C-alpha cells in the first residue's frame, strides 16, 4: 500500500497488452546462435525497448542490449527488427501487436556481434575518426568572440548535425557489405557536416580524402541509409552533396566523379543516359572493352538501347531544362542539391515493379506487401 495516494491521487491501472517477439540470441563465448520466442505483458504505451526491459527483468537477465536516454537522442539502442535497423526506443509495439505480428529482433548488420543485440562499434568509430571530425579553421585568424555566420550559411549542415551515431545506416549499407572499408554513410555525413560548415577551412583536403578509394563514389546509391536513419539525417543526400562539392571544386580524379559528369553531358545532348558510352567515357577504352561482355548481356536483356543512331528522347527540351537546373546546382555545389533524392528513389522502386510503397514508410514489423499488389 502506498502512503502517498492522498496527495498524488491514485491512478487507474494502465491498460496492457500481450506482446510476443523473437530474439536472435548470440553467445560470443560459445559461438551459439538461437532464435528464442518471448511472450510478456506490457503496458500499451510500450516501445520495443520497454519490452526488452520487461524480458530482461522478469524472464532472462542475461539478455544483452544497449540503452540509455530512451528518447531517441543517445544513439545506444540500434538493432534490427524484421531485418531492418531501428532504434528500439522509437518503435511503438501497439500497432504491431494489434496486427498479430511477431517481430524478429536481431543485432545490427555490418558490425561484429558482441552478445545478443550488442555489436562492436569500433569499426564504426574508426571510420568517424578517419574523417578528422573536428573544425579546422585553416589560416583564418580565430575571432575574439564567435565566428560570424548567418543562419542561412549554417542551414546546409542542419540535417547532418542531427546524427546521433546510432549506426542504423551502417547496419543496412549495401556497399559496406561488399567493401567493409567503405567509409560509409554515417562517417560521410559527418564529413559533410564539416565540408558544408562555413567556418571550416579544410574542405579541399577533406574532399580529396573522401574522393579516394572507399570514399564517396563507392556508394551504390541504394538509399537504404536514408530509409533507415531514425533522425532524418539522410546520409545518402550528404554523400550526394559531397559529390557535388567535389565536382564544383574540380576534384574529379575519381571514376565516380567522371561518371557523374558524363551522366550530365549525356542527358543534355540526347535526353537519355547513353549507358553504352558511359563506361568508355569514365573508364577509358581498355577497361570498357573488358566490360563489353557485361554490356552485351545487358543489351540482350533489353536493358541498354543500342548505341547507333543515338536515340533522342522526345522531351529533350525538358531534359535540357533539367540539365540547366543541375548545372545551376553544380555551380552552387552542395547548397544547390535538392533534398529530393529520396523521392526519386521512391519512384525508381515503383518503376522497377517492386514495393508500391517506399520501404521507409513500411512500419518495421509489418509484413512487406507482395510486389505488384
Amino acid at each position: 500500500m502506498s502512503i502517498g495516494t492522498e496527495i498524488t491521487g491514485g491512478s487507474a491501472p494502465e491498460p496492457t497488452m500481450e506482446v510476443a517477439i523473437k530474439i536472435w540470441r548470440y553467445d560470443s563465448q560459445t559461438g551459439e546462435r538461437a532464435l528464442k520466442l518471448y511472450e510478456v505483458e506490457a503496458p500499451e504505451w510500450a516501445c520495443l525497448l520497454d519490452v526488452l526491459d520487461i524480458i530482461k527483468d522478469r524472464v532472462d537477465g542475461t539478455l544483452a542490449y544497449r540503452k540509455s536516454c530512451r528518447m531517441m537522442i543517445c544513439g545506444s539502442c540500434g538493432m534490427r527488427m524484421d531485418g531492418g535497423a531501428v532504434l528500439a526506443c522509437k518503435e511503438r509495439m501497439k500497432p504491431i501487436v494489434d496486427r498479430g505480428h511477431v517481430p524478429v529482433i536481431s543485432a545490427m548488420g555490418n558490425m561484429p556481434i558482441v552478445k545478443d543485440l550488442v555489436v562492436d562499434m569500433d569499426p564504426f568509430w574508426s571510420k568517424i575518426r578517419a574523417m578528422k571530425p573536428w573544425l579546422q579553421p585553416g589560416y583564418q585568424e580565430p575571432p575574439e568572440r564567435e565566428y560570424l555566420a548567418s543562419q542561412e550559411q549554417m542551414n546546409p549542415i542542419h540535417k547532418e548535425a542531427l546524427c546521433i551515431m546510432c549506426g542504423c545506416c551502417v547496419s543496412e549499407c549495401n556497399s559496406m557489405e561488399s567493401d567493409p572499408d567503405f567509409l560509409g554513410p554515417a562517417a560521410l555525413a559527418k564529413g559533410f557536416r564539416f565540408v558544408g560548415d562555413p567556418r571550416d577551412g579544410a574542405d579541399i583536403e577533406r574532399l580529396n580524402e573522401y574522393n579516394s578509394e572507399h570514399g564517396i563514389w563507392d556508394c551504390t546509391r541504394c538509399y537504404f541509409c536514408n530509409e533507415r536513419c531514425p533522425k532524418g539525417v539522410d546520409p545518402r543526400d550528404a554523400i550526394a552533396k559531397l559529390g557535388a562539392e567535389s565536382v564544383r571544386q574540380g576534384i574529379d580524379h575519381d571514376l565516380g566523379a567522371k561518371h557523374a559528369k558524363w551522366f550530365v553531358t549525356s542527358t543534355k545532348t540526347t535526353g537519355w543516359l547513353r549507358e553504352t558510352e558511359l563506361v568508355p567515357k569514365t573508364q577509358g577504352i581498355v577497361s570498357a572493352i573488358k566490360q563489353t561482355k557485361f554490356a552485351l548481356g545487358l543489351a540482350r536483356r533489353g536493358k541498354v538501347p543500342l548505341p547507333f543512331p543515338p536515340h533522342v528522347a522526345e522531351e529533350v527540351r525538358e531534359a535540357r531544362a533539367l540539365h540547366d537546373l543541375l548545372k545551376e546546382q553544380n555551380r552552387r555545389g552542395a547548397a544547390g542539391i535538392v533534398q529530393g533524392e529520396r523521392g526519386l528513389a521512391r519512384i525508381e522502386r515503383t518503376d522497377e515493379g517492386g514495393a508500391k510503397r517506399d520501404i521507409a514508410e513500411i512500419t518495421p514489423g509489418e509484413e512487406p506487401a507482395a510486389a505488384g499488389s
Partner: protein
Amino acid sequence: MEAKHDVLVVGAGCAGMRAAIAAHDIGADVALISKIHPVRSHSGAAEGGINAALGNASEDDPEKHAFDTVKGSDFLGDQDAIEILCEAAPEDVYELERWGAIFSRTEDGRIAQRPFGAAGEPRTAYAADITGHVLVHVLYEQVMKREIPAYEEFFAWQLVIDDGRCQGVIAWDLLNGGLKSLGAKTVILATGGAGRLYSGTTNAYACTGDGMAMALRVGVPLKDMEMMQFHPTTLAPTGVLITEGCRGEGAYLLNSEGKRFLERYAPNAMELASRDVISRAEQTEIDEGRGVDGNVLLDLRHLGADRIHERLHGTRELSMVFAGVDPINEPIPVRPGAHYHMGGVDTDVWGKTSLEGLYAAGECACVSVHGANRLGGNALMETITFGRRAGAHAAEWALANTTVEVPPSVEADAERELRHLLDRADGERPWAIRDELARTMHENFGVFRREQLMRGQGDIVAGLRERYQRVVVDDKGNVFNNDLTQALELGFLLELADCMIVSGLARKESRGAHARPYDFPERDDENYMRHTLVAWADDRPRVDWTPVTVTKWQPQERTY
C-alpha cells in the same frame, strides 16, 4: 593495476569531457572512463540551451545573470561560485562555438539567445532544440582531436583510497568482463544526476547517481541532497522532457477549464516563472481536480506550424512518438517529473572535495550554483565552466605530485565483494526493488513534502535496502554483463534515497524545490539559509550543516 594516469575523469558527459580537455591542454596524461560511450551521455538530451550573458539579443551582463541565478536558487546558492560561473560563461560559450558548436544564429550572424524561465534577459544560447546534443558532439570531436584515451563501457564502482587520498578507480569492464583497477593521481567525478530515483523522470537509464554514492562511501559528504528539481513539462507516462524552450517561444499552460492557470500563481512572469513555482502550480491544479488525467496542457498551437518546425522540431517528434500528439494541432499533456539534482558531492569553487585527489564537476557535484532551484540553461553552463576548472586544477595538482599506488589488498577486497554478489544463486531479482523505490520516492518525496510521508519513505527505503542484501544477478558471464552493473547501480540509488530523506526531514522550511506547504510553508532564512551536508557513518546517513556564501545579495522575497 591495469593502467596509470595523471588524471582520470569518471564520466564523459559535458562536464567530464570538458574537464579532460582542460587537463590535457595543461599537459597532463588524462583519460576518460564512462559506462556508456561518451556521445551517449545524458548531456546530449539537453534541449533548451545554455546561459551566458553574451548580450546578443539584449543588453545583458554577467551581474544580471548572477542576480537571476541567486534569486532563482532561493538564496541557497553560493554567491562566490555563481559570480565565477556568470563571469566565465561568455568566454566558455565562445570557445565552444569556435570549436565548431552549431548554435542557432541571430540576424547579424551571432549566437542566438532566447528567453528562459526566471531570467531577466533573453540569455539562453541554443541550437534549435538539440543544444545538449550539439555540445556533446563538439566536445567529443575535441576529445578525438586530442586523442584523449577513453575507457568506454567501463563501469566505475569504487574509489581507491590510499594514504589518505584518492588514487584511482576500480571498474567493471563491460565488454570483456572482470574488475580493472585504474590508478590516477587525481580523480574527477563527472557522473551526472540521479533522476532514476523517481518513476517519472526526464533522466536516462544511466542517471543513477554513481559518483555521488562512490564519494559517499569513502566518507566525502554530499550537499543539499533534498533538492531535486521537478520539471514542469514532462510527458506522461515515461517522463520524457518537453523543453522549456517551448515556453520561451511563447507556449501556454492550460488547465482542464482551458485557463492559463499561472495567473493565480505567477501573474507577471506567467509561463516563464521559475520551474519550482510552475511545478507546484501544476501539482496544485492537478490535486484540486483541474487536471486532465493527471496532467495539464501545454499549448503550442498559436505559435504556428512554421515556428514549430523550425525551432521545436525535436519536441514535435518526441510528442508525436511518445504521446501520439502533434503539437501543431493539439496541446501536449504534461506534468511535473524529476529532472535535475541540485545536490551532489560537496566541492569548493575548483571542484575539489574534502578528500585529497578527488574532484567533482557537473550534475553530480554541488558547488553550489543552483542552490534550492536551478534555472533552465544554467546546468549546461555549469558543466562547461566547472568542468574546465576542475580539469585544470586536478591536472596542476597531479603534475606537481608524483606517485600512484593501488594496493593489492584494495583490489582483492573489491574482487571478493563482487564475487559475493555474483555467486549468490537464490534471492530476489533487483527490478521489483528498483521499481518500488522509484514509485514511492515519487509519491512520498515529490513536488510537495510532508513530515509523515517522508518518515514513511525512510522506512520503505530501509526495507528495500534490507531486501537488496539478498539480491541476485541472473547473468554470471563476462561479456556485456549489464545485469551485474544494473544491480550495482541500484545499490547506489538506495543509499542516495536515504541521504535525500534525512536531509529533507532536517530542512524544516519551504525553499525552492523543497516545498512543505502543510507544516513549514515559509522560507526561514534565520535558521535554514545554510546547506545540508550528509555523510555516511555506521551504515546510515548523518546530517550536518554548512553556511551559504553571500557576496553581494541579501535574501529577499522571491516572486515572479
